[in-house]
């Protein structure tokens, strides 16, 4: 058994060290993989706010992930075509600036989460799982069949968006951005869990009737958490689209929702660094198994099954033992 804090530190140091070593050895693709881990972990951190703190099992977070991606595509694509984003009622140019895109992605994700959450949170338990799934599908089909933004072909941008002072085309510099945002999000999630809001939200997860009797509306708490969660996941989506320089409806598919949830559960639900461990393990498995057999998903499924059946509390739970109550 290792203390959870030490484990988390090792995890983050590992995620930081792998691309640095890869850089030194001239293996840029490994840096790309580490960037993918950081971005997917960020999406997981977003989901974990809803899932771990709030107890909301959302199987529709691909909606926010995809919305973040499309925010990137819709803002950046007009720039490369030398066209304005919109001309009516006022002319708005597109942008290739990452900070602007991130803000737009988070705003769009938050708005979508507000709408989806407001309806879905009227229900609970298994209804909530299925409804979030169905809303995700609704956006997925919409994105495929709506012709304006490329439909199933998606939107390609040929050059990665820019960040002041950095060359984002350099894999290691883009990794630094993704890693920095992941660290920020982890810090935010940490503060949130220990805040007044976090206390109330976790209370509402355990006993909503009691929290209501204390004068705090569980619905409003959860909706707020869902919106925060949607915004973080949308930010991850914008970064993911930038990593691939491409966005398509595949980001909105329900398999994506399932995978984001897998990161969170693999790592350990409600553990701050769970999504980081989960995403790292998932990507490692995907690339290692993918090289072993065409039927690698069969083995991935068996491994997932073994983890959920026999390693409760996820990886961090297995390594660090029972979660201690919040200090």
């Amino acid at each position, binding site marked *: 058994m290792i203390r959870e804090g030490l484990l988390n530190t090792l995890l983050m140091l590992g995620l930081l060290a792998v691309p640095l070593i890869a850089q030194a050895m001239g293996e840029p693709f490994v840096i790309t993989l580490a960037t993918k881990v950081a971005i997917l972990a960020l999406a997981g951190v977003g989901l974990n706010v809803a899932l771990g703190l709030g107890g909301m099992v959302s199987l529709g977070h691909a909606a926010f992930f995809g919305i973040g991606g499309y925010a990137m595509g819709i803002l950046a694509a007009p720039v490369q075509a030398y066209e304005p984003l919109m001309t009516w009622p006022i002319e708005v140019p597109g942008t290739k600036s990452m900070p602007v895109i991130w803000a737009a992605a988070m705003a769009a994700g938050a708005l979508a989460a507000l709408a989806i959450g407001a309806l879905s949170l009227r229900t609970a338990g298994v209804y909530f799982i299925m409804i979030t799934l169905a809303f995700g599908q609704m956006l997925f089909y919409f994105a495929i069949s709506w012709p304006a933004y490329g439909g199933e072909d998606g939107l390609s941008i040929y050059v990665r968006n820019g960040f002041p002072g950095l060359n984002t085309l350099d894999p290691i510099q883009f990794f630094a951005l993704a890693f920095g945002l992941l660290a920020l999000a982890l810090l935010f999630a940490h503060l949130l869990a*220990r*805040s007044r*809001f976090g206390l109330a939200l976790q209370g509402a997860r*355990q*006993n909503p*009737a009691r929290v*209501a009797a*204390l*004068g705090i509306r569980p619905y409003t708490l959860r909706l707020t958490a869902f919106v925060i969660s949607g915004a973080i996941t949308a930010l991850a989506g914008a970064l993911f689209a930038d990593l691939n320089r491409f966005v398509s409806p595949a980001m909105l598919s329900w398999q994506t929702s399932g995978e984001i949830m897998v990161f969170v559960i693999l790592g350990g639900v409600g553990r701050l660094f769970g999504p980081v461990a989960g995403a790292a393990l998932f990507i490692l498995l995907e690339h290692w198994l993918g090289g072993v057999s065409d039927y690698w998903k069969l083995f991935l499924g068996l491994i997932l099954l073994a983890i959920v059946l026999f390693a409760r509390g996820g990886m961090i739970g297995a390594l660090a033992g029972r979660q201690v109550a*919040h200090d």
Partner: protein
Amino acid sequence: MTDPVLAVHDLSVAFGALKAVDRVSLDLRPGEIHALIGPNGAGKSTLIGLIAGGLRPASGRITFLGRDITRRDTAARARMGLARSFQVSSVAPDFTVLQNVTLAVEGAQGRAYGFFMPALSDRSLTDRAAQHIARVGLLNRVAVPAGDLAHGERRRLEVAMALAQHPKAFLLDEPMAGLGPDGAREFTQILDELRHEAPILLVEHDMDAVFRLADRISVLVYGRVVASGGVAEIRANPEVQRAYLGDETLP
């Protein structure tokens, strides 16, 4: 006579064909303990639920501090100062005693949306929580998860949470259920002090405690109030004897 803190007027609710609460009117006056007794299934817990806000009445009104609260939700009623305990212990089981009571203090302050305001390192929250925990004698158990507490301790934790709300009225649903004779005696003492904070609407099966504590008693049978009055009056009421107490001799 002062105005009642809490009053229900002609309150009714039905579950299918069953009239769980049938045109009930009663009130709670400052400083008193008003006990609600009756056989199992008489509708006592349903009535508490209606007053606290978990259930919606089919007809009738509820006023609290002079205002009609019939259409307000649970949280709004709680913020006005209506504190309740549940028939089955209701706490956040993974939270420690301190976390549970801190949450109650937070609710009373109406500031649950501080995203960057740390909760458990904020002395203005935890000191107050500790005071309430001390009141119920759980100070040596602050760091224990509520789920690991003994039954009686959890009951006291609920009282501490209710106290933290700075209530204008308590709704206590069988707070002494399952406590055993020693626990019940101790708890009676706590409730006796509690009445100085705010009046109590008390649902209780322990008749010793009821007769020792109550200023007034209302008897609920099949959803209706069949008798209401002072302790002696209710003891003597033949209808109560027959309908509720049966052949048991009263203490």
